[in-house]
């Protein structure tokens, strides 16, 4: 298959991004006592029922719309939850990896002889021991070798795997493996990668002859354009032109994860891996090792945090080969450091030129977005395509051009990460909105009020136009109200506000089975991975509401491709909408089956019967569904099985493969105090407002929004991966790579969900788990600029960077700034 064919293949596959779904709203748990109004509002949110809905006629419910406790919570607080590394496998061997201390090298010799002789060693495997040519895999380009094949392209790429009886033995033997290599010049940042004559990460001979970028490090490009920017530029009263950067950041899941591959008696493989996409992993393993899908069973223990990093196969194909070669269960548990070498967010540089009229209306917006992806494609081209699709922002723009590139480098392959390429470009566009506003004498709120699209209005124009699917101005106004926009500021403080959008899933297939058992308890089979977003809690709520089953009699089964029906993936905040609708449909299917069999069993005309959540409606009145099902099943007993499918086709020719099922819209506002002596930031207040449709579980919505807000602050304030001249990650591990702690949480953190019940998911819900970090950087940058009177254009806003900015000429607390 040529690269080009692969790309076509991918477009049809519809790959989407980061997982984590849920819903959203307001919360201020700051230690300050809630006033009575706040307390009432909160109590209302935590107890509230559904006000209206698509699925079930909008009956208020004690379950859907209420803050039901997390499904599986007991095991999580008692330590009984089994994550991957907690599982025991009889007779399992331990695997460890040999890597090189450089990012880019040609391997000239691998000597495993001494290692193979070490005690307890079962196998020492290099590329030469694999089928030839060495199998490669990947979601968009099949470019990643199972083990390094003659070269390494990034720091941490596995060269040799050692399997031994114990981990100590495997590690001892790994130290005896001798790899001889010649270090090559690599490219580790955009400047290096795009320089004329730069070393090429991918050999041009592996790329299609008609690929115009084959002699460069540009892997793929996207161009979105409408109107005429050059003609429009003449009509702009104010033009601002700046460059913005967003660094490489890593997922840092608290569970590093790992994989166990177990050969089965029938010649198949059981793969245990805490992944977001078990069915993709099943397909990948089957293809790489040449087994039928039915012979590959993927068990996906709940990921202990994933954020997009655990979507796509990485080391699982290697473990599969190790298990087949040794005939043993092979176990590899990763270190946190290894996760840094396996997943990260693409860095991005955006050159932006934006024109406004004197009253603040956008005239044109021109963006060149370069995403620094890694040594293998993973899903990064899709991140570039989908992220840059919304680069111009949720605005009314008559003329726009976004030219984006995915640029390869000798770094950790970048992949999906909460926000999926949107936060990087939102940082630029939101900063540009502020830059324009400052020149025009408008404030940050005014310029957004002026340009934000109304519901149904296009923000992306052309044949595949995209329009606002919610009343986004409500979120903007709510955030402004909650932050206290326009109120006087204490000295050294600044206030900022920003908005952003992200396309939800563009297509997909989720299937669910629900069993309604003889005693009224129920089981949902739903393949969504529950990695903290609380998907299973929602399915539990839906079953309880639709079938009348008490919450504690609902079970949810997931994470096993052997018994749970197909689900495309847990990504793009899709699950509430896609799997939610599938689960809902399965419940409706059960009610209709109960009705039909009840009519048959009793002789009552089916036309005289109807069903509603939890009940069968007979001519004599409502009957609990359980009672009706007993009558229907009669002496034979048994159960009802319902099936639900949510299928969304793509759209041919659409640049994203299809229209987004929904958009995540968020407005974040921040009040910050800057220490002018040290450059440190103290966040006094952080407000995040999301357009969520309907909150199916307000507490889970709050958790998602607070979590995304704080993660966004991490990216904005402290996180960045640093590499040295050899491409080696300098801050590899928790000691040197900082993420937010309890002490980094804003003094006051308020989240709020706007509910208009206008989403495509159950009861009017939308996906919402990424929204709150889309524009965090923009809001913080806006606030800091407001406080110091100087623009900031590079992230993260470390004390050093803020101090340096302050100590450039011209910094004035609260003063103006000269944009050019």
């Amino acid at each position, binding site marked *: 298959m040529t690269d080009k064919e692969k790309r076509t293949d991918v477009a049809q596959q519809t790959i989407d991004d980061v997982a984590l779904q849920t819903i959203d709203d307001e919360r201020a748990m700051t230690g300050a006592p809630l006033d009575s109004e706040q307390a009432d509002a909160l109590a209302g949110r935590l107890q509230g029922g559904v006000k209206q809905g698509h699925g079930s006629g909008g009956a208020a419910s004690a379950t859907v719309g209420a803050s039901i406790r997390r499904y599986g919570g007991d095991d999580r607080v*008692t330590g009984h939850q089994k994550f991957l590394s*907690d599982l025991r496998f009889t007779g399992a061997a331990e695997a460890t990896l040999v890597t090189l201390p450089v990012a880019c090298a040609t391997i000239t010799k691998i000597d495993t002889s001494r290692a193979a002789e070490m005690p307890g060693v079962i196998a020492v495997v290099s590329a030469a021991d694999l089928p030839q040519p060495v199998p490669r895999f990947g979601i968009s380009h099949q470019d990643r070798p199972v083990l390094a094949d003659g070269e390494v392209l990034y720091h941490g790429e596995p060269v040799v795997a050692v399997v031994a*009886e114990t981990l100590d033995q495997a590690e001892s033997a790994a130290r005896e493996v001798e790899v001889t290599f010649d270090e090559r010049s690599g490219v580790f940042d955009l400047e290096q990668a795009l320089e004329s004559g730069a070393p090429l990460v991918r050999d041009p001979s592996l790329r299609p002859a008609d690929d115009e970028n084959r002699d460069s490090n540009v892997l793929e490009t996207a161009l979105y354009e409408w109107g005429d920017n050059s003609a429009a530029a003449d009509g702009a009263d104010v033009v601002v032109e700046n460059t913005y950067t967003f660094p490489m950041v890593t997922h840092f899941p608290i569970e590093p994860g790992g994989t166990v591959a177990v050969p089965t008696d029938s010649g198949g493989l059981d793969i245990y891996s805490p992944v977001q996409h078990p069915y993709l992993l099943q397909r990948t393993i089957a293809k790489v090792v040449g087994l039928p899908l039915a012979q590959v069973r993927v068990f996906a223990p709940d990921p202990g945090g994933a954020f997009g990093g655990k979507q796509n196969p990485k080391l699982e194909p290697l473990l599969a080969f190790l298990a087949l070669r040794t005939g043993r269960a092979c176990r590899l548990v990763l270190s946190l450091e290894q996760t840094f070498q396996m997943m990260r967010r693409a860095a991005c540089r955006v050159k932006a030129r934006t024109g406004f009229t004197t009253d603040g209306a956008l005239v044109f917006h021109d963006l060149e977005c370069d995403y620094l992806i890694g040594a293998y494609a993973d899903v990064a081209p899709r991140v570039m395509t989908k992220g840059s699709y919304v680069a111009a922002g949720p605005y009314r723009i008559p003329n726009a051009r976004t030219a984006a590139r995915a640029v390869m480098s000798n770094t950790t392959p970048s992949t999906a990460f909460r926000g999926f390429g949107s936060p990087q470009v939102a940082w630029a566009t939101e900063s540009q909105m502020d830059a324009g506003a400052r020149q025009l004498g408008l404030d940050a709120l005014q310029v957004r009020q002026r340009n934000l699209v109304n519901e149904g209005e296009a923000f992306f124009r052309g044949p595949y136009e995209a329009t606002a699917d919610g009343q986004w101005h409500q979120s903007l106004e709510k955030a402004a109200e909650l932050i206290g926009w326009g109120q006087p500021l204490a000295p050294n403080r600044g206030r900022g506000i920003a908005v952003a959008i992200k396309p939800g899933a563009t297509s997909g297939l989720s299937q669910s089975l629900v069993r309604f058992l003889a005693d009224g308890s129920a089981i949902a089979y739903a393949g969504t991975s529950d990695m903290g977003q609380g998907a299973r809690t929602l399915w539990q709520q839906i079953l309880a509401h639709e079938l009348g089953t008490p919450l504690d009699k609902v079970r949810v089964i997931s994470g096993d491709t052997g018994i749970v029906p197909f689900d495309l993936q847990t990504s793009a905040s899709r699950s509430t909408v896609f799997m939610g609708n599938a689960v809902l449909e399965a419940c409706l299917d059960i009610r209709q089956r109960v009705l039909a069999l009840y009519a048959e069993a009793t002789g009552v005309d089916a036309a005289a019967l109807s069903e509603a959540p939890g009940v069968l409606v007979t001519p004599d009145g409502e009957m609990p569904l359980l009672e009706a099902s007993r009558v229907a099943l009669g002496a034979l007993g048994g159960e009802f099985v319902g099936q639900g499918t949510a299928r969304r086709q793509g759209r041919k020719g659409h640049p994203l493969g299809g229209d987004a099922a929904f958009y995540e819209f968020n407005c974040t506002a921040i009040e910050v105090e800057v220490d002018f002596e040290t450059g440190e930031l103290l966040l006094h207040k952080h407000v995040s407002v999301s357009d969520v449709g309907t909150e199916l579980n307000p507490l889970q919505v*709050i958790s998602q929004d607070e*979590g995304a807000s704080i993660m966004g602050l991490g990216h904005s304030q402290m996180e960045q991966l640093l590499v040295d001249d050899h491409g080696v990650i300098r801050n590899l*591990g928790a000691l040197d790579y900082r993420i937010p702690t309890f002490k980094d949480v804003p003094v006051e953190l308020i989240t709020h969900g706007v509910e208009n019940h206008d989403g495509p998911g159950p009861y009017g819900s939308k996906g919402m788990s990424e929204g709150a970090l889309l524009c965090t950087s923009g809001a913080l940058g806006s606030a800091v600029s407001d406080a110091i009177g100087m623009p900031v254009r590079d992230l993260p806003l470390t004390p050093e960077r803020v101090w340096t900015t302050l100590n450039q000429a011209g910094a004035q607390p609260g003063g103006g700034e000269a944009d050019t």
Partner: protein
Amino acid sequence: MTASDVQSPDDIGSDQVNVTCTVNGKPAAFSVPPHRTLMDALRYQLGLTGTKTCCAEGECGACTVIIDGAGVNSCLMLAAEAEGRDIVTIEGLGAEKPRGICDLQESFLEAGAVQCGFCIPGQVMAAEYLLRTNPDPSVEEIREGMSGNLCRCAGYQRIVAAVQMTAQKRAIP
């Protein structure tokens, strides 16, 4: 077979160290290589996998246990140092309570403090230690006291709420 069942020739010194201590109120005895951390011994010798491994260098708090009344990162302590000590792990905290869940664990659930759950055993142990040393902590004291425990889901607000909730419950005799 688990990582520690077989003696490794690479261990520093070839001797195993015999350790006897109290774990969750019961006597425990195990034999480990001298370099084995308490975290690994708890997980692999004693099967107490509620103690989690993330950074393994004392930064994240996922492996927090209480030893002789003090909160400890068990990845930074050698198993051999546990000789004669009294260790409480997450499995021991609510073991005697209905549903196996103590008031603090209940508060974590009630406050919505649990997302993916991987850091939660460590968070609960750190919070338990905090509340034992400061039964009525302010928000600032909670943030300070818990700052050694990372949560990438960033459920920090909810955890603070859970600790406050527990303090209130415990204040009522």
